[in-house]
């Protein structure tokens, strides 16, 4: 699953650790999310959308096989 997390994080000038703390997750989870290697659960996706004040579809985009 593709996403714009890295761009949005850069726009807010947050480090991966800062973003992890704001979401209550581990930094390794932010790394995996940004790399598109891990698709978040619905509750986490909504938490991310609330933090960046954007819809889930604005942030996440399914890959070609999804």
């Amino acid at each position: 699953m593709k996403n714009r997390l890295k761009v949005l994080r850069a726009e807010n000038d947050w480090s991966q650790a800062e973003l992890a703390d704001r979401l209550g997750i581990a930094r390794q989870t932010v790394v995996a999310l940004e790399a598109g290697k891990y698709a978040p659960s619905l509750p986490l996706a909504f938490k991310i959308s609330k933090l960046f004040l954007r819809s889930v579809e604005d942030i996440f985009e399914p890959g070609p096989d999804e």
Partner: protein
Amino acid sequence: MNKTNMNPTTLAQRRYLRQMAVMTVAYLIVLYVAVTALKHGHVGDPSLRYAVALLPLIPVATLVPIFIGYYRNTDEFERRMQAESLAIAGGVTAMLSVTYGFLEMAGLPHLSAWWTWAVLMVSWAIARPIVGRFYCQ
């Protein structure tokens, strides 16, 4: 940072490491006491010897709820990786124990049940960083 404002995943990891450390020390103390009592013949009654031999199980058994507590309180990605690495470790242990079971029937020496536990723990410890690498590279 105030503890109540701390990242819940970080708190869960710290609590887990602290509880594991305390229980490992408790295990080593109980193990030492039990082994010493059995070795030096302080316990004569056979049924009491079984009870003393099982004493180290008390701290070991507490590790199960400690891990379950960590599993439930850590973040979803760590849960995924722990579940995958435990599945791999379970598969490896099943395959190795079945393989050796067949080899035993062909004449290899009988091994202690301890080996099953050791293989499960070692394969879990190896699988966890490999699974993490797969997701985070």
